[in-house]
C-alpha cells in the first residue's frame, strides 16, 4: 500500500506546476471586481475604458509564459492563441492597439504599480502591496 501512495506522491510532484493567477490593477483603479466578460474584453483590447471613462492600459507576459497561459485558461477561459489573434486583428486593421508586453513578473508588478489605469496579472502567492487585486467572477 505504501509503495502505491509513494508512487502517487511522486507522480503528483512530477506534474507541471500550475500557477493560480490573480488579476492586478494600478491603485488608481476604482473597481474591486470585474466580470469574466469584462476582463476578457479588456485583455483582448476591445474594452478600452474603465467604468469612470479613464483608459485601460493592459500589460501582458509573453505568449508562452506559464502565467500567461494561466491567465487565459483559468481566469478568462480562452486559449492564448485566441488573444494573440484578437490583438493582431486590431493592430493591423487600425481598429485598436496592442497591449504592452513585459518580460517578467517583477516587471509586470513595477509597470502596473507605476501606470494609472493599468491592468495585469501575477501569481496568486505573490501578494504585492504596490498593486490592487481585482476579483474576476
Amino acid at each position, binding site marked *: 500500500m505504501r509503495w502505491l501512495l509513494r508512487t502517487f506522491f511522486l507522480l503528483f510532484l512530477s506534474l507541471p506546476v500550475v500557477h493560480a493567477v490573480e488579476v492586478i490593477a494600478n491603485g488608481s483603479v476604482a473597481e474591486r471586481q470585474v466580470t469574466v466578460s469584462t476582463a476578457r474584453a479588456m485583455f483582448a483590447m476591445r474594452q478600452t475604458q474603465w467604468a469612470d471613462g479613464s483608459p485601460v492600459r493592459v500589460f501582458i507576459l509573453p505568449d508562452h509564459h506559464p502565467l500567461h497561459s494561466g491567465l487565459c485558461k483559468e481566469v478568462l477561459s480562452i486559449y492564448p492563441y485566441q488573444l494573440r489573434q484578437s490583438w493582431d*486583428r486590431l493592430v493591423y486593421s487600425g481598429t485598436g492597439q496592442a497591449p504592452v508586453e513585459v518580460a517578467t513578473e517583477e516587471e509586470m508588478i513595477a509597470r502596473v504599480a507605476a501606470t494609472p489605469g493599468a491592468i495585469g496579472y501575477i501569481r496568486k502567492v505573490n501578494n504585492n502591496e504596490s498593486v490592487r487585486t481585482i476579483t474576476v467572477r
Partner: protein
Amino acid sequence: MNQFARLLFVSAVLGASGVRAEPLDGLPEGVQAHGFVSQSVVSSNQNRIGGSKSGSLGTDMRELGGNLSWRPNADWLVSAQLLSRWAGASDNGNVRVDYAFVDRLLVNAEGARLGARIGKIKNPFGFYNTTRDVAHTRSSILLPQSIYHDQVRNFFLAAPGASLYGGLDGTENSLEWEVSVMQPEVRDGNLTAFMVDQQTGRFKGRPSVLAHALWEGDGGRMRAGLSAGSLAMRFQPAPQDFFGLVGLMGGTTGAGDITLNTGVFSLQYNAEDWSHTAEYAVTRQLRKNFNLPGPLTILDMDSTVEALYLQTEWRFASRWKAFLRYDTLVLDKSDRNGQRFAAATGLPAAQRYARDWASGLRYDPTSAWSLFAEVHHVNGGAWVSKLDNLPVNLATTWDMLLLQAAWRF
C-alpha cells in the same frame, strides 16, 4: 523600391535581431508603431503565380507594411497604415495607403460599445479580409482564393467612407458589428482583367454599403460571422477597347454598370489544439447597360459566383501548426464546369472554376518570426491572375509549392 519601402525594409532588418513582437519603445504616450514584412518563394508546374515561371522559382511575392496609431485619450483613435506588395504582374510594390481613419468611441456602458469611423477603412468581410496582407494573421500563405480572391483584392480591401460599429460583451457570448458606406477603389488592372478582360478602360467606384456581424460564443470557442454588401462600379471603356469597338458597332459606348451583391457566412470552432473553419460566399454579379451585340451578350449577363472552403488547423506542438483545406470556386453557378462559357467564347472552361486542395505547415520560432510551407493541387484557374496567365494558355490541372518567411513588430 521607393523610399518608404527602403526605410521600412532597413528598420525591419535592423529590428529583426530583437525577438519580442511589441510596440517600439520611446514613442510618445498613446502612440504605437507596428510593421510586417514577408518574402515568398513559389514553384508552379503550370500556371504562373507570384512571378513564377514553369520550371523555375518565383521570388516576386513580397509584402511590406507599417502603421502608426495614436490614442490621445480613451475616446479617440487615429490610425494609418502604408502597404507595399509585390505579386507577379499584378502588384509591383507601389506604396498604397492601406487605411487611414479617425475612430471615435461614442458610447461605452458596461459591456456595450458604440462608435464611428471616418476615412479610408478596411472592409470587414469574412474572417480574414481586414488583415489579409499580414502573414501572421493568415491561416496559410495563400488565403482561400475562392473568397479572398487576390484578383479583386484592392476593390474589396478598404475604401474611403464612414462606418458605425458596436460591440456587446456577455458572460458567454459577445457580438461585434460594423456598417459602412463607401466608394470602392476600383482603378486596378487586375480587377479590369477579371471583370471585363484586358482592356484599357477604367472602372469608377459608386456609393456602396457593407455590413458585418460577428458572434462569439463560449469565450470564442464558437465564432459565426455574416458579412453582406452591395458594391457598385461603372466601367468606361477606352475608344480602342474591345468593349468600346463592339459597343460602337452596336450603336452604344460599351460603358456599363456592375453591381456585386455579396454575402459571406463564416463559422469557426476553436479548441486548444484544433480550429475548424468554414466560409461560404455567394456573389450575385449584376451587369447593366453594356448592350453588347450578338454572341457577346454572354459578357453582359448576370451571374452568381459561389465560393466555399473547409479548413482544419492543428497545433500539434508548441509553435507548430499544420493545416488542410479544400477550397472551391465557380464564377457562374449555372455553368459550374465552364462548358457554356467555353462554347460561347472559345476560351478554356478552366477559367470559370477552381478546386484547390492545400496543405501546409507553420513554425513560429519567436513571436516575431513565422515560417510557412504549403502545397496546392488545383483543378481549374478561376482565381489565377489574367495579367500573368494568358487565358488561352490556362492549364486545367496544376500544382504549386510555396515557402514564406515573415517578420513583424
